[in-house]
């Protein structure tokens, strides 16, 4: 009931009390009136007054009779006098007439009458004779008194009439008020009854609503899919719905009244649960209650532990506190999540296995194929009949195609494995295009097709990009065009598009289009040409030797360079493939990159080839001997070390995968040793071209690496470097080896830019100090272990910033210093001194 209603009812009760009080007072008054009427303090006053007149007349009559009679009856006169006297005395002395006596209309005749009586007493009480004699006079007096007596009676009567009127009026008024107030009370009570009726109806309606809501709530609870458990503040179960029964395996009857801790909390969590309840009771502190969804372990009736998602909320039930828990069995969900994670892990592992498998397979295919191709090259140099020469050339072509396929597969594998490295450097675009046209014109000519290239509009001769990747893209497109064009024309157009890649950026979109007049591509196939293993026509593809990977590789490469690729075609009249790349214009380097070495004037070098595969060993030996170099061979790392320990070699070609001792270990040993070839250039021979492998090679002290199959041109470049003196255990300075940009990027990404700058500048200072210390050092007097220790420290920092060559130099110096080799240490210091400024420049400009 509301406060307002309570106040109203209290008000009505107060009003009723007041009314009842009034009624009581009035009733008492009425009873008083009635009592007065009943006990009648009045006697019959009117009668008494009339009686006075009657008795006066009786007295007068007696006097009259006596005065006329011969024998006057004096006794009668005296008696009547006494009676009248007594009456007047009563009237004058009785308190009943006290009020009346205040009235002059009454008082005056009364006094007159009393005067008469007093005057007459003497005569009445006198002797009979005197009385008889005075009868006449008395008669006269009596006659004189008659009007007075009349007045006395009538005035008294009118007074009492008036008084009884007043009394009646008073009673009437009292009764009126009693009736009025009773009516008021009745009205108030009637209104109260109506009001209480209304309230009652309202309450019963509210009760009905409440029970309906209750029923609804019960229905909701019983049909809820989540378990709902209500407990009191002590943790005793009050409610336990059907879903909770299903989840936990207790019936509601079993569960109610039991402690929730014993019921559904696993033994391991019970202590924490009880502590939580105590804490909540003691301080109201809640850690789980009201904190939204929480995932916890719960226990079923059978003791099985399973995960639940739970939300707890506190509520007030009358004056006790209750806790409502919504629980959801998520064991299925957790299980399926785990399954999903497992499936993903498996898939990832599968992908990795696939990529690894592809890489290994490629390696395993490339190595023997390398042998075949190398030997074919050597065979061409021998005396062959014309037919034999034809066969050899055909074999060589087939071999190269096979090698191309293997490379394509390897590229995709690498791309998918995320290992595709982009090395941006200034590239002469015009030269690159020219080279492609030169290289492909032979193949085109074979099809009777002309191939040419040109710039449209303003050329961009030099741009920063990955030349190898761009070359690969264009070769794929051009190769494709040649394949599908006979007796036609292939045009390569390059154009710098006007729109900048980004605002305020020197970068431009450069579009290179390869246009042919070939068979064209039907529109429905145009969508698919960049997909993996998509060949236009199986028979045609087979005839032209396509794997269907060329264009998909081109697409991947383009994407890796941040560009786009697409194709348009008119079946029967030709196709247009375009590549759009964001290119940064670059200045041409002062020196032409890797111009083909001049074979003339090459110094004859002493080369050690360490290779377990006899074919490859033979191939390398023959290639070297072709150029007039002296070749020593070793079949494994161990024998390689021995050979290097005996002779001073100008170059060591070191295979990586070998029995007994692999190339990396052998290199380390040679570098660490005191042999005459300890600082000889060592070049790795490997089909494994993954970046981390190269790092590993360099760390072991290798100067460079050559991919397998071993190509004569590559070999000659290395040899020419050595002839120029660059190969002396120093990696090519212009190569990407100076800074491992990936490592540097990783470091930068893992730090805030401020922290990166601070660390970098510390490293630069450290290195500057080290070098000036090293240069001012007299090694003969100074203990070398100090040098080793300081180098070791700085080498750690160098690794962090990807200063690959500088670090390798430091490691080398450390090794020499540890070995106590003063001469080699000095040599290393010299090398470091020349290496550092370049490294520092590169680091500080990134």
């Amino acid at each position, binding site marked *: 009931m509301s406060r307002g209603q309570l106040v109203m009812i209290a008000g009505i009760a107060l009003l009723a009390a007041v009314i009842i009080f009034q009624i009581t007072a009035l009733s008492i008054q009425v009873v008083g009136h009635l009592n007065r009427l*009943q*006990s*009648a*303090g*009045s*006697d*019959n006053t009117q009668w008494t007054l009339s*009686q006075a007149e009657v*008795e006066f007349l*009786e007295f007068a009559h007696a006097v009259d009779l006596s005065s006329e009679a011969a024998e006057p009856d004096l006794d009668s006169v005296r*008696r009547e*006098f*006494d*009676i009248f*006297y*007594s009456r007047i*005395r*009563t009237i004058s*002395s*009785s*308190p*009943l007439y006290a009020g009346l006596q205040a009235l002059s209309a009454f008082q005056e005749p009364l006094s007159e009458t009393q005067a008469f009586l007093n005057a007459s007493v003497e005569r009445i009480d006198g002797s009979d004779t005197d009385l008889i004699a005075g009868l006449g006079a008395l008669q006269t007096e009596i006659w004189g008194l008659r009007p007075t007596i009349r007045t006395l009676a009538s005035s008294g009567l009118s007074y009492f009439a008036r008084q009884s009127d007043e009394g009646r009026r008073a009673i009437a008024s009292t009764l009126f008020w009693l009736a009025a107030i009773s009516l008021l009370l009745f009205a108030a009570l009637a209104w109260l009854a109506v009001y209480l009726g209304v309230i009652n109806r309202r309450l019963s309606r509210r009760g009905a609503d409440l029970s309906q809501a209750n029923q609804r709530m019960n229905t909701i609870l019983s049909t809820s899919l989540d378990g709902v458990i209500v407990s009191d503040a002590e943790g005793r179960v009050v409610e336990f719905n059907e879903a909770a029964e299903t989840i936990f395996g207790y019936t509601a009857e079993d569960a109610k009244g039991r402690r929730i801790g014993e019921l559904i909390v696993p033994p391991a969590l019970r202590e924490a649960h009880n502590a939580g309840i105590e804490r909540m009771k003691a301080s109201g502190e809640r850690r789980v209650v009201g904190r939204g969804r929480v995932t916890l372990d719960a226990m079923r009736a059978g003791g099985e532990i399973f995960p639940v998602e739970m939300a707890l909320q506190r509520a007030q039930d009358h004056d006790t506190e209750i806790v409502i828990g919504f629980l959801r069995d998520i064991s299925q969900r957790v299980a399926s999540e785990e399954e999903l994670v497992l499936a993903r892990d498996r898939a990832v592992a599968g992908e990795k296995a696939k990529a690894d498998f592809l890489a290994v397979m490629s390696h395993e295919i490339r190595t023997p194929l390398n042998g075949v191709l190398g030997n074919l090259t050597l065979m061409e140099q021998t005396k062959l009949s014309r037919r034999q020469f034809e066969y050899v050339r055909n074999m060589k072509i087939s071999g190269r195609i096979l090698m191309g396929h293997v490379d394509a597969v390897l590229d995709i594998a690498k791309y998918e494995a995320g290992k595709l490295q982009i090395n941006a450097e200034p590239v002469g675009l015009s030269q690159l295009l020219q080279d492609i046209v030169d290289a492909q014109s032979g193949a085109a000519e074979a099809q009777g097709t002309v191939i040419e290239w040109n710039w449209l509009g303003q050329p961009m001769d030099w741009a920063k990009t990955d030349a190898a990747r761009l070359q690969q893209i264009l070769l794929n497109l051009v190769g494709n065009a040649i394949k599908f064009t006979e007796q036609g024309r292939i045009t390569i157009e390059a154009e710098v598009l006007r729109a900048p890649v980004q605002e305020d950026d020197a970068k431009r979109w450069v579009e290179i289009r390869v246009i042919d007049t070939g068979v064209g591509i039907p529109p429905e196939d145009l969508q698919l040409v960049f997909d993996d293993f998509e060949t236009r026509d199986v028979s045609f593809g087979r005839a032209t030797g396509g794997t269907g990977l060329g264009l998909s590789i081109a697409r991947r490469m383009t994407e890796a360079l941040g560009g786009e690729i697409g194709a348009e075609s008119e079946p029967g009249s030709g196709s247009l493939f375009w590549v759009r790349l964001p290119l940064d214009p670059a200045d041409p380097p002062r020196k032409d990159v890797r111009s083909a070495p001049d074979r003339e004037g090459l110094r004859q070098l002493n080369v050690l080839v360490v290779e377990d595969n006899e074919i490859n060993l033979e191939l390398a030996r023959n290639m070297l001997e072709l150029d007039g170099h002296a070749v020593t061979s070793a079949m494994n790392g161990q024998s390689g070390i021995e050979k290097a320990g005996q002779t001073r070699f100008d170059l060591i070609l070191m295979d990586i995968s070998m029995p007994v001792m692999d190339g990396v270990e052998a290199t380390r040993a040679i570098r660490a040793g005191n042999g005459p070839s300890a600082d000889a250039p060592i070049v790795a021979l490997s089909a494994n071209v993954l970046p981390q492998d190269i790092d590993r090679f360099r760390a072991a002290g290798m100067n460079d690496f050559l991919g397998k199959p071993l190509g004569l041109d590559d070999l000659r470049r290395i040899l020419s470097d050595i002839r120029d003196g660059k190969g002396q255990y120093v990696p090519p300075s212009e190569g990407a080896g100076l800074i491992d940009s990936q490592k540097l990027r990783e470091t930068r990404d893992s730090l805030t830019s401020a922290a990166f700058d601070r660390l970098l500048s510390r490293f630069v200072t450290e290195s500057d100090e080290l070098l000036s210390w090293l240069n001012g050092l007299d090694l003969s007097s100074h203990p070398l272990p100090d040098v080793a220790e300081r180098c070791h420290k700085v080498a750690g920092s160098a690794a962090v910033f990807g200063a690959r060559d500088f670090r390798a130099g430091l490691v080398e110096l450390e090794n020499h210093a540890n070995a106590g080799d003063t001469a080699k240490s000095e040599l290393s210091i010299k090398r470091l001194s020349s290496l550092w400024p370049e490294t520092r420049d590169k680091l500080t400009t990134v």
Partner: protein
Amino acid sequence: MFLSLFRSLLVACVLMGGSIGLLQAAETAAPDGPVILTVSGPLARTNAGAEMQYDLDMLRAMGSSSFETSTIWTEGTHVFTGVPLRDLLMDLGIESGMLQATAINDYTVEIPVSDALVSAALVAYEMDGKPMARRDKGPLWIVYPYDADARWRSEVIYTRSIWQLDRLQVLE
């Protein structure tokens, strides 16, 4: 009261001894002084024919009782002395019927005998120790102890408070 009872018994014994078997009223001595009260009706005793007449001495001889009370007809309180009406009636063997009391001026009221036998009414002959004059509601006045009890203050009782009483008649 005890005395009057004793006397009644004595009288009864005399009657029994004197005239055995007679149911008629016994003759009692006539009054010497002026008669102030005459009782008529079926009486156990008479002294003037079928009536019983009393003078003041006879009433006095019947013993007296008194009380002090105010009345609505007089000023102040007064001590009334007289014969209790009940004693008088019992003395005369009146046990039922209607008592008709009449005053000198012939004012008459009826008092049921049954009421009179249980009332405290007094046939007063003295007020404040003095006989009451005819001019002052004498010589006899039936008074009730009005102050003692509210039941003596009703109109009926006031009506029955007859003064200047001189006759009582018992009606069957």
